[in-house]
């Protein structure tokens, strides 16, 4: 029997500080291997292996959860923890709200919100643009999209931090916060059922038919819960990490100011190299071999998107951030049938956030060099004003 390659691979919290070096070591020496963390899982570190697993949904199931560890609940989140055939019925419900046309219609609100936030953070000499810009922007847009009361976005960050970012170290707190969010979502559903119909996400969910039958209360909650956790911190992370890079790379910041036409390809490059979702999990539905490793039915398999996105076999100079990179297929939004439902909106928010920020504020530089590239924490910058 061949020996199974083992690494103490983690993809949460402080492990992210040095994860690009970790990925390189895995790709070079252990492209498929086993980690004992989180109950034990196989990991795939190569771009091609990740792509193939994403396409083969029959072998790599998303049940019981795409998240490892789960987001504070054992309830399956809809649609990401659901396999076909039900999966496509769920997705079809909301896909029309995220097409390029639908996103175009939302864009003026994104622009106006970005300007208002930028004008506020730039008032001082130093600002936390993680807290003041990257985080509120997606939350405010999300309120409109889902139908939450606009002022409620102030409550979201705390919930998201407890459910997502503390879950590997404090699962009880994560579960408590999950219950609070589910109660909050449910009160919105009950309120909306008394009100005249409106065409937003909540409006579509509460009136939905799934394969010819009315959606259940449980399904509404499990869909709403997923959206709450999928659309807020991911976009905030993408905006923050882009600004984190620009605060440390004045030449590229200046280049984007001079040539805003490059912002779209720059955003794509930031998404590739600093993806908000570094990995997602699957469960093998049968015994399968990948890269010589014997994955058994029922084993958890982690697709390390962040590693695939820096695979030297897929990109020239994969660890270089090249803001006008032309060929840029990547896994920031996943691939296959579970690709991010909101990718068009997410991309648009990042691009608008960068464009409006560079347009409204003077050159900015990093103040606290210890602030990491990842996460949704503080990003402290100083604005450099002409004397």
């Amino acid at each position: 029997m061949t020996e199974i390659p083992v690494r103490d691979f983690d993809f949460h919290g402080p492990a992210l500080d040095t994860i690009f070096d970790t990925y390189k070591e895995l790709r070079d020496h252990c492209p498929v291997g086993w980690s004992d963390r989180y109950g034990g899982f196989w990991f795939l570190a190569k771009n091609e292996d990740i792509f193939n697993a994403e396409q083969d949904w029959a072998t790599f199931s998303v049940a019981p959860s795409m998240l490892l560890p789960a987001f504070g609940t054992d309830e399956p989140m809809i649609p990401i923890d659901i396999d076909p055939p039900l999966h496509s019925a769920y997705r079809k419900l909301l896909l029309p709200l995220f097409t390029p046309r639908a996103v175009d219609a939302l864009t003026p609100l994104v622009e106006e919100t970005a300007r208002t936030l930028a004008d506020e953070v730039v008032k001082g000499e130093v600002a936390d643009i993680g807290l003041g810009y990257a985080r509120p922007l997606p939350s405010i847009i999300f309120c409109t999209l889902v139908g939450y009361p606009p002022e409620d976005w102030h409550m979201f960050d705390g919930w998201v931090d407890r459910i997502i970012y503390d879950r590997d170290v404090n699962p009880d707190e994560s579960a408590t916060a999950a219950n609070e969010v589910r109660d909050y979502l449910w009160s919105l559903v009950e309120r909306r059922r008394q009100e005249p119909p409106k065409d937003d996400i909540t409006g579509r969910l509460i009136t939905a038919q799934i394969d010819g039958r009315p959606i259940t209360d449980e399904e509404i909650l499990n869909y709403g819960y997923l959206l709450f956790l999928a659309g807020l911190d991911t976009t905030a992370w993408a905006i923050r990490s882009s600004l984190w890079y620009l605060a440390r790379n004045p030449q590229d910041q200046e280049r984007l100011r001079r040539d805003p036409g490059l912002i779209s390809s720059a955003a794509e490059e930031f998404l590739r190299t600093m993806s908000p979702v570094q990995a997602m999990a699957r469960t093998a539905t049968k015994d399968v071999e990948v890269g010589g490793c014997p994955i058994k039915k029922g084993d958890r398999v982690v697709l390390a998107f962040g590693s695939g996105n820096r695979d030297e076999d897929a990109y020239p100079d994969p660890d270089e951030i090249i803001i006008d990179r032309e060929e840029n297929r990547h896994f920031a939004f996943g691939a296959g049938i579970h690709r991010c439902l909101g990718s068009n909106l997410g991309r648009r928010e990042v691009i608008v956030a960068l464009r409006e920020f560079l347009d409204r504020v003077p050159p900015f530089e990093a103040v606290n060099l210890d602030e990491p590239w990842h996460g949704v924490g503080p990003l402290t910058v100083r604005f450099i004003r002409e004397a």
Partner: protein
Amino acid sequence: MRIAVDPSKCQGHNRCMIFAPDVFEVDDYGFATVQNPAGTVPEERVEAVRTAVANCPELAILVLED
């Protein structure tokens, strides 16, 4: 150049619409097709289509004739 979008592969990322919005189109769910039913790409749009092919996360754009 002649192309097609494989409907079993397209997942609606809409990257093709960024690079060649005059060659591709999307339905109400965001799934892409080629506007020209014959799939023929005008000479002056070949380069843009090549960029779209290289950026499709699903490898869903098939080059039938180059």
